[in-house]
């Protein structure tokens, strides 16, 4: 086991896959000699050359389209978006082409493509750099979407994503790159379509992902002190949602709290609640509650910014209120 930063874990995953498979390449802005804005591709260019770690001019639509063409022609490109917000410029290529070309070509063309980059609210980066776009991409058919949250799952998931033969959108978070964790030395892969059980419990199912996983973990001491026993699930796979694992948990706890960083309207929680309604309605003792950011652009001012992101204290309050209200009926 060795302690490693998240950005380093992602770099290690990329490095290992590029070493094993010569068709894996990285395409993006400043990924080459600069090593990437978040150092995820540090020193890869000196190992693999400027052609396999390709610095491009600034045009997200262009290098995403380029990666699509390259993927069709036998490469396994990893596109790095400097910030996931900028990938909105590539939305046409991602939605109209990456998600569709296998289908509309009758299964004749395959796109083993990874599109990765940081999103989420950082430290006073302003609205345009604080976008949470997972839900925008979640609707696109043909894509797989994962959100990593720890160095351990980042490495395992990225390796799986690179080996997957479908286009995978891989969300990282700006504030998690310096997270440190011990990870195994030996090679390991994590499935792209399964949740991660952070904590087993029986009182309530808390569904979360990315940075909010850590806010839920920070809320745990207060909850445990008061005798609550939450089950915490990191969604990991945002498309497809691992409804089977979620249902195992909900059948046990009968209460669900969703803690997400995206905006409330049409966010990840909205889709979760729809699926829980369809498959798990009878298992619920209370309506599903979602804690999300408000439907506003993220402000720059520090305390205002903090007010738009769900804090651990809100999570504690919400858990207590749900459990208390359900207990009131049962007793």
């Amino acid at each position, binding site marked *: 086991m060795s302690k490693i930063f998240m950005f380093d874990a992602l770099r290690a995953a990329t490095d290992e896959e590029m070493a094993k498979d010569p068709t894996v390449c990285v395409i993006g802005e400043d990924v080459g000699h600069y090593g990437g804005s978040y150092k995820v591709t540090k020193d890869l260019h000196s190992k693999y050359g400027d052609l396999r770690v390709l610095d491009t001019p600034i045009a997200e639509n262009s290098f995403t*389209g380029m990666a699509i063409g390259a993927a069709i022609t036998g490469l396994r490109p990893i596109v790095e978006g400097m910030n996931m917000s900028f990938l909105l410029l590539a939305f046409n290529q991602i939605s109209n082409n990456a998600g569709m070309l296998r289908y*509309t*070509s009758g299964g004749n063309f395959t796109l083993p493509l990874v599109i990765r980059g940081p999103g989420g609210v950082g430290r006073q980066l302003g609205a345009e750099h604080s976008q949470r776009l997972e839900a925008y991409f979640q609707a696109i058919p043909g894509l797989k979407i994962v959100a990593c949250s720890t160095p351990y799952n980042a490495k395992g998931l990225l390796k799986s994503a690179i080996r997957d033969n479908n286009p995978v959108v891989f969300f990282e978070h700006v504030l998690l790159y310096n997270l440190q964790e011990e990870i195994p030395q030996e090679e390991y892969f994590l499935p792209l379509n399964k949740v991660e059980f952070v904590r087993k419990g029986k009182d309530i199912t808390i569904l979360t992902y990315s940075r909010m996983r850590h806010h839920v973990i920070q809320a745990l001491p207060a909850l445990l002190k008061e005798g609550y026993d939450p089950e915490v699930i990191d969604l990991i796979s945002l498309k497809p949602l691992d409804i089977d694992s979620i249902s195992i948990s909900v059948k046990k706890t009968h209460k669900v709290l969703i803690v997400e960083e995206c905006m409330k309207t049409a966010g990840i929680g909205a889709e979760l609640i729809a699926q829980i309604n369809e498959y798990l309605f009878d298992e619920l003792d209370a309506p599903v509650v979602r804690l999300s950011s408000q439907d506003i652009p993220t402000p720059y001012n520090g305390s205002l910014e903090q007010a738009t992101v769900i804090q651990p204290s809100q999570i504690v309050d919400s858990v207590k209120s749900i459990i208390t209200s359900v207990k009131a009926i049962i007793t």
Partner: protein
Amino acid sequence: MAALTTMTAAGAVRAAARGGAPRARRVPVASRSVGGLQARPTSLARASGKVGVGAPAGAPVTSAPATTAAAAVSPGPRFHSAATPAARRRPRSTPLSETAAALPSYADGVVTSHGEATAPPRPPGTPTPPIKDYPHHPPPRVIHHPSAQHAFTKFTPRWAATPAQGPAPLPIPAYRLVDARGHFVAGATGAAGEGVGEDNILAGLGGRPRIEGLFRTMLRLREMDAVLTSAQRQGRVSFMMSTAGEEAAVIGAAAALRPDDEVLAQYREHGVLLHRGWGLAEFVNQCVGNVKGSCKGRQMPIHYGSVEHHFHTISSTLATQMPQAVGVAYALKLRHRLAAAKAALREDNGGDGGVGSCGSPRGNGGKSAPPAAVTTAVPTIAACFFGDGASSEGDAHAAFNFAPVLGTPTLFLCRNNGYAISTPASEQYASDGIAGRGPGYGMPAARIDGSDLLAVLSGIAAARAAVATTCRPFLVELLAYRQNAHSTSDDASRYRRDGERDAYIERADPVARLRALLHRRGWWMGASEEGVWRAAVRAEVVAALAAAEALPRPGWEDLFEDVYDAVPQGLVRQRDELGAHIARAVARAGGGSSAGGGP
């Protein structure tokens, strides 16, 4: 899947285990507060009896447990419960027949395909009302090719590619070897080393067998388009696009490329597939959308694709293929470099080549020097077709910039046919066409008279050779004229001047021009034989169409395949739901009298 369907039973078991105490939402629909969005007490409070539910008389809360137990078994009746008061059921919407009658219909000649009201159809013989006059449009009798900003297109008998950088004389002259009457122009010089003069050039381009063969391919394309357009008017195919006027540009380009050069096209390049040997059956199967169609019925007609013929599946969004073509070229370059580096290492070490650096993108000494055995040249290139309208898209600029910066072997081929649906080229850009942009991006550019098959063959061969040997991009603009409408969905007479089309057909029809040349050389099959041959092609297409229509369409089970490499569980569920719905519909249709009603 099984786990989910048994949940309701489990729910009932749990309710029973609680002593049958009603859960909050077991309260039937009728007893909820009527009127929608007013603030209502939580279901928890209601169930505990603390708050009245405002139920209409006759639907007492005490009936809840009984309904609960029944409802717990199957979710269906709960939502279509007979306890729902009639007042809450939504009134039936306006019947379709009433709304349909309110709309104007095509039969009146009032509504166009875009829904605007127009004047009723003119009686025959009435002159066309003039369309909007643009100050820079010359009168129709002068041949003004709408594709270049300047009033008259200049032609040149010598290949005149601009340098990648440095001064380029504007307007870039169009390379032309054969004039409208089928005679070689003075000073005609081959672009790819064929030499000077008619005999040398014809010999250098493959002589009679090749030129006559390409003439037949052009005729074949024209006939196939004509038959399929008629089929669209008859409702047998939903949508169709004609390539009339651009046969030489596309088929000539296809012939100048290698058969395994990757082609990314826009939508009017059927000629490439026809030249590469795609059968008529393939074309019509895709248009009809049957099981044997290349896309399994999932794409519109015309959106052809074939891995075997190195033709990427057409995507409707304009210009998205352009950055993709840069990516395809990049992949070809990278794979070639990797293979060459591996071979070189194997030679050096006598062992298996390792994976490593494969040269810099700029090809002439970047940060890491390429191994000695790696040459700049690549065996195959990526050729990207796009139209004059598509060149305005952001993706076009992006591709034009990326290709020369990254050094990818991309051959950009612009079919400037003068129109983007109704927008003439003079309203599409203010530059010297598309070729004039090449030096601005740092890549060489050239313009070719796309109605002249020989100029296309020679010029594109030269451009392709430059791309393949230098591993750098090249921009070619092919001047052509779109004789028919954009597609079967628009009417070109609404935006074209009277006489313009006829003038271009007279002077710039590629088939007529090539026929004149062949006739002069004695290589033409003659009018009657051509007529017979074309009728045979038409019959072949008609037969292929009939055969295609006889084949089955893909079944609904196929809907969920190929979204991913394997069907994920979520889609399996959706497929099963659809299957159940279809089975019910089939049973209802075949099952005689049942208490119909609901959806």
